[in-house]
């Protein structure tokens, strides 16, 4: 019961944030909060396979980028008024681009996962990284969509008559998607499917011994995670009104992993905390020095060496092991 009250209070505060920011005269906070919400979706999607399933995917940013590019490319063809590949008409309707991004992310993850999941351990880490790199190079080389320089999206998508150019509206949309995704994740990880996933993390051998061939479950989780991460990418494209190969750079994959670890592996709200912490840290450090990564790097090393359990462990009840 107390959990629910705390959660409701947190949610209310999150919803009220744009007004609070306005009252405090710090409107920039809304943009930062939007970034946190979007990254939290991406990190939470990674958490499904990394935290619950124990699959160390080092290429998750690929789906973030694919989701973003889905929005960007559909916009570009809408702007030029010529169909994509000659058949798919461009569009600037979020109700179309958003599901399209989810579909693209899910299919790409299914294809990459189908191959990568034939391996495990350190090979799996290397292969997911390499495939993400492959997608990255693909977009670097696509001159039609800006190549290295990326693609400007002059107007955010239309969505039920809302103005997504308004920071607060964009923030609420991102927050709504985040809350919906966390709620969905909460159901999935407690379901039979989620139980299998947790079993996979703990002991593949045990899973085989109870008669479960784990491959299809891992693949399904991988695809779901890719789809959700692409949704985050689609939001990002609308927020930043710009997509570029940087969205799927391997360091982005690393950052997503850090958010998950920082918050707490296999906890529902951990990735949100982790995203807030990392975005906040970057925001603060980059305000102090241009060479903020020089400081961030050792901080990460220290966290891994000495504070492995993540921020969620500070909140006893919902910490790792009690999820």
């Amino acid at each position: 019961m107390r959990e629910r009250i705390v959660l409701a209070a947190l949610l209310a505060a999150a919803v009220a944030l744009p007004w609070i920011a306005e009252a405090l005269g710090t409107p920039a906070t809304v943009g930062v909060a939007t970034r946190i919400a979007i990254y939290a979706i991406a990190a939470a999607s990674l958490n499904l396979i990394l935290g619950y399933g124990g699959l160390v995917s080092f290429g998750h940013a690929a789906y973030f980028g694919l989701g973003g590019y889905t929005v960007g490319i559909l916009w570009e063809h809408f702007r030029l008024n010529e169909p994509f590949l000659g058949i798919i008409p461009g569009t600037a309707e979020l109700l179309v681009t958003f599901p399209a991004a989810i579909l693209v992310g899910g299919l790409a993850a299914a294809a990459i996962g189908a191959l990568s999941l034939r391996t495990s351990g350190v090979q799996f880490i290397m292969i997911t990284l390499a495939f993400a790199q492959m997608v990255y190079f693909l977009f670097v080389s696509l001159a039609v969509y800006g190549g290295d320089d990326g693609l400007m999206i002059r107007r955010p998508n239309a969505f039920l008559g809302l103005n997504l150019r308004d920071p607060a509206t964009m923030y609420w949309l991102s927050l709504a998607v985040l809350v919906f995704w966390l709620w969905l994740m909460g159901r999935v990880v407690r379901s039979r499917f989620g139980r299998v996933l947790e079993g996979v993390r703990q002991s593949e051998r045990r899973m085989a011994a109870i008669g479960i061939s784990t491959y299809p479950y891992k693949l399904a989780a991988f695809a779901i995670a890719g789809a959700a991460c692409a949704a985050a990418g689609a939001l990002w494209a609308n927020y930043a009104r710009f997509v570029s190969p940087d969205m799927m750079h391997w360091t982005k994959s690393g950052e997503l992993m850090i958010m998950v670890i920082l918050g707490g592996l296999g906890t529902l709200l951990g990735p949100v905390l982790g995203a807030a912490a990392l975005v906040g840290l970057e925001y603060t450090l980059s305000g102090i020095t241009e060479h903020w990564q020089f400081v961030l790097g050792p901080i990460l090393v220290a966290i891994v060496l000495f504070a492995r359990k993540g921020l969620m462990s500070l909140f006893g009840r919902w910490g790792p092991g009690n999820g």
Partner: protein
Amino acid sequence: MAEPVLAVRNLVKRFGGLVATDDLTLEVRPGELHALIGPNGAGKTTAIGQICGEIAPDSGSIRFDGADITGLSFAQRVRRGLSRTFQIVQLLDDDTALENVSLAVQAAEGHSFRFWRNARLDRRLTDRARALLAQVGLPEERARVRASDLSHGERKQLELAIALAPGPKLLLLDEPMAGLGAAESLRMTEVLRALKGRIPMLLVEHDMDAVFALADRVSVLVYGRCIASGLPEAIRADPAVREAYLTEEDGH
């Protein structure tokens, strides 16, 4: 005579120059408890590994329940009713005893592509899991304890309960008494005695008291080869078996 539940024929497995399983032939008949014994390094664990599908044999065949299963994976064999326990217990250590068994019950119920209902609150799973825990003698109040916090003996019991969850047609038991104290060992013997006759079992065990108390037939493995197979009294009297065990004693 009825067809054996498990028929291992001419199984061979080499690791480099070492022949771990040397033309092994072995049968488990319906309803019997068949013990597989042998000195250390005789290749018992390798044999079990091949029967359950974790290790691929170099040649030979394995028939189970009327079908050739030589090419099937471990998980596929389990789904056909071949269940096993491990010498070193394999559990989901972060989960409670009840959750461990519930997951096994869930696996036996068919695919787990169900995303919506809370599996931990599913009475179909937990009721059957509780019954299984009771069957192996794990007390009710231990059901909510994390597997990693259970005692060694309790973990062995828990693993047996998990192995029973699919309603197996054959149980492979890899040293269920290993590391147990005298009292725990006796309790496990009683649990197995209660299962005997209902489920055929292939028991690998070092505890000779347990073996001769339980087994209907005994096979003796030495250097990967089955040197004798028969009724317990006959095995006890077999000179070849005596020699194999005696030379082992000398070797120490």
